[in-house]
């Protein structure tokens, strides 16, 4: 074997080994636990009314979060990339903060700012919106922790999207909408999909902040993660792991789908995807290349 091939094999083994031990092994332990008493017990566990309700609520809230995040995240990324305005760098640095804030603190902050006893919360209450201890609160918490995903996924792509590509389309007679649809969107799509799918997956598993702002009433405002926690605490680990397995399977399927959608099956990368990936590399070397738009 050539030295190159040998190194490649060694690296591959190391990578696979690490991922297997760190990620797959623990997840398999969960799987074993939930199927310990057989498939019927597993199905029983997840069809408990509380479990089912929790799963449905979680998926619904995560979907809602994803949609809101997609819209506002795209808008934010666009604004941060295309326009220059006072405070741009500040906002840009803020984007990654939700990663750093302990979820507990995020929950407390949101509960304090949007609770019924705060000015904002009271104002919203007058408008008929009860944020806390309801679905809006859950969505808000999920939004907080997933905020960076769409924005960070789109920024590099948008940066690369050279203005002259769109201008070229204009000179060729395209309307702004056509340019958007035929040029911008396809280039941006992989980044957008990545951000969207990661948002969904992350929102599914969120616990620390949701448990503070949601009412956690079983069958009404209890998300899967909180249900799982409750089952572990009341000596029903199988019920807990069963529901977790469902969440994990949904996440895994979503991630596989994302992988398929954003990565070509063969060696030669198509043109637009190439540009996208070049862009992601480019952005790290070329902040000065940032197009300043008016």
């Amino acid at each position, binding site marked *: 074997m050539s030295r190159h091939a040998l190194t490649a094999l060694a690296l*591959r083994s190391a990578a696979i080994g690490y*991922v297997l031990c760190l990620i797959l092994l623990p997840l398999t332990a969960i799987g074993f636990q939930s199927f310990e008493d057989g498939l019927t017990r597993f199905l029983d566990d997840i069809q408990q009314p509380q479990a089912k309700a929790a799963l449905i609520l979680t998926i619904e809230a995560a979907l809602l979060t994803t949609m809101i995040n997609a819209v506002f995240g795209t808008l*934010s990324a666009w604004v941060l990339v295309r326009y220059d305005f006072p405070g741009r760098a500040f906002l840009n640095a803020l984007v990654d903060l939700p990663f750093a804030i302990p979820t507990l603190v995020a929950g407390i902050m949101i509960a304090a700012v949007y609770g019924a006893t705060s000015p904002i919360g009271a104002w919203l209450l007058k408008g008929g919106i009860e944020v806390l201890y309801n679905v809006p609160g859950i969505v808000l918490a999920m939004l907080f922790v997933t905020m960076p995903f769409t924005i960070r996924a789109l920024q590099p792509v948008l940066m690369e999207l050279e203005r002259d590509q769109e201008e070229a389309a204009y000179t060729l007679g395209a309307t702004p909408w056509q340019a958007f649809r035929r040029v911008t969107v396809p280039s941006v799509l992989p980044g957008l999909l990545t951000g969207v799918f990661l948002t969904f*997956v992350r929102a599914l598993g969120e616990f620390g902040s949701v448990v503070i702002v949601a009412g956690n009433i079983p069958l009404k405002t209890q998300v899967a993660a909180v249900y799982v926690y409750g089952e572990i605490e009341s000596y029903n680990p199988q019920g807990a792991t069963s529901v977790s397995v469902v969440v994990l399977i949904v996440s895994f399927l979503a991630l596989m789908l994302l992988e398929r959608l954003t990565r070509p099956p063969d060696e030669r990368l198509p043109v637009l995807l190439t540009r996208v990936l070049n862009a992601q590399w480019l952005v790290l070397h070329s902040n*000065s290349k940032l197009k300043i738009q008016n």
Partner: protein
Amino acid sequence: MRGLFISVVWVYFAALLIGPIAYLCVQAFGGGLTVFLNEVVRPEAVHGFWLTAEITLIVLLLNVIFGTVTAMVLARQRFWGQTFLSGLIDLPFSVSPVITGFMLILLVGPGTILGTWFGTMEMKILYALPAMILVTLFVTFPFVVRELTPILLAIGTESEEAARTLGANEWQIFLRVTLPAIRWGMIYGATLTIARAIGEFGAVLVVSGNILQLTQTATLHIYQSYVDFNYVGAYAVAAVLLAVSFLILMILELVKTRSSAVTEQSISIPMVQP
């Protein structure tokens, strides 16, 4: 149009991010500067900071090394099960922290094979530092890999191939060709890892035992303060953590801008030709 968009984004950020964080800062200093400082230098808080720093450093090192390796494998190699592997990478995002901790207990708890083996070797995993490192490793794993894989895909293998034909060995190729190109991606991934590791709470709560002054990280200390009704203390320590993360992120931004002018000319790694 431009004005509208910018305003909307400001409102979005304010409602979601700036508002709550401002609240946190106001609460942290709610008792005045002396109270804030007192809370931050309490022995429990200091111990928490040290422990968090230790864990973050170790996790950072391991993640950068293995993350880079994994990214290189995913980007450069084609093998059976690649999609599966790639799907696994992002999975830690969706695992709730309670489950993360629980998984570790299932794996190395008493009565398990691994657990008994570690027991006979007198090594404490659970309710001690190793478990805390492991769960933090788990939750921060995606960051470096996700940053590096697209870059590696983009820069292609031409330079590396060229270096290989010129007689360089694998290590030299990595150090002199690949590494400089992925440097910024690595740094960004490392920054995110640091930020996430500092903020990890749920999983560490489950596997650390929450032993005062022994296994309480900064975030666990925040939780302890919160349930002790010491809100100012909780917010004060949280504000410090936040400031550290924000500082690192801002430094990264500044360094990037500063050095991009220099590196643009010196790096001539060809991009993948469409």
